[in-house]
């Protein structure tokens, strides 16, 4: 490819990987938290809600710095995970973690909205038909909340593609390992004369996101069609 240099390609490939992993890996937890916030009453609900929103409120640097403190190689948590074969610090896995955390509030909010919109009467109907809580969730709540799950995933993916502040703070900007598209753009913008390359990456970034959006809209439309005929 002549449009992008090999390093730029590496950044694109890395970003895709980071965003995809961040989105998919946080999906189950996101669903759980969204369901809890939407339907359960428990002490600490307000605190959980605040915690989920935190990455939105804090400047990304702060989030990144906190991640560094919690998951850095010198921190017990980070060291422990590294011992378990999941090193995070200065690795793409850490970039995925940072992106996932930054995207988490968006993902949870979308899912929660959709779960709240599911008619509890249908869940009750499923229960009378013998479905356990888990089965009700999997066969009724989740499928009916799919538009929100999809929206949450798209938001998370887009956010992960664009995440920069927390990522660079947590895992730095190492080519091939943690230099995602936004980090690369930033680096290009910092160095005199890098504007052209930055622009090319911006274009790629937009292209990827538009494709992801189009895919999600198409899926959503199929879902909607399915529901009405």
């Amino acid at each position: 490819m002549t449009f992008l240099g090999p390093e730029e390609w590496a950044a694109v490939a890395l970003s895709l990987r980071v965003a995809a992993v961040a989105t998919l890996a946080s999906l189950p937890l996101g669903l759980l938290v969204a369901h809890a916030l939407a339907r359960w009453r428990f002490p600490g609900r307000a605190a959980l809600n605040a915690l989920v929103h935190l990455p939105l409120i804090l400047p990304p640097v702060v989030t990144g710095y906190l991640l560094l403190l919690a998951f850095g190689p010198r921190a017990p948590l980070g060291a422990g995970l590294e011992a378990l074969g999941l090193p995070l610090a200065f690795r793409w896995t850490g970039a995925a973690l940072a992106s996932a955390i930054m995207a988490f509030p968006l993902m949870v909010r979308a899912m929660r909205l959709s779960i709240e919109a599911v008619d509890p009467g249908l869940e009750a109907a499923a229960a009378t038909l013998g479905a356990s809580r888990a089965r009700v969730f999997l066969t009724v709540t989740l499928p009916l909340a799919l538009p929100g799950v999809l929206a949450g995933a798209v938001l998370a993916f887009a956010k992960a593609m664009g995440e920069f502040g927390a990522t660079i703070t947590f895992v730095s900007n190492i080519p091939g390992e943690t230099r995602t598209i936004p980090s690369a753009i930033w680096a290009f913008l910092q160095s005199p004369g890098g504007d052209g390359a930055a622009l090319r990456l911006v274009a790629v970034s937009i292209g990827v996101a538009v494709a992801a959006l189009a895919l999600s809209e198409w899926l959503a439309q199929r879902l909607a069609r399915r529901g009405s005929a």
Partner: protein
Amino acid sequence: ASLGGVLDEVAAEYTAGTGEAVAISYAGSSLLARQIEAGAPADVFVSANPDWMDVLEEAGLVAARTELLGNALVLVGPAGAPALEIADLPAELGDGRLAVALTEAVPAGIYGRAALTSLGLWDALSGRLAETDNVRAALALVATGAAPYGIVYATDAALEPRVAILDRFPPESHAPITYPAAALTQAGAPFLAWLRGEAAGARFAAAGFTLLPGE
């Protein structure tokens, strides 16, 4: 961060010469310093801010330190603007703003503030600043015309066609602008030596940096 580009070229030559790959992580000095503190697997640290190098040195993380490069501070305006003495800034600024990196936090801003203070212009200008999070953003303000003038490094100004250097700050008006470099591990020593070598020196000089004798 101002080292971006040149450093890439230097590293590429190093790799070509030694066969050893070099990975460069660009980020703000404060960020990198904190990451090193937190255990980042870095061998060499080049900083735009001597203060953060001091912090690492005190923490005992620095194996060998050297003052690698120097830079100069210039006053820029839009390309084609008439020349302007720094001393005339307060008068010429009108209701425009002077773009500069954060004067309390970012090295280029700290130097700029010192320079303006020693030239006796700080009081007149301190309320008319537009401070950004890095030099390049300050440069962008001038390049896009949002701010009529800005204080940036000579190296940055040289490569932005939309701005012109109007005046240079006298080197004695601020603390010397130095880019300390340090090997953090034994493995970092050869690359640090390469940075101080002739081939690298030529590159840095071409980009507008001054080469410092070290120590």
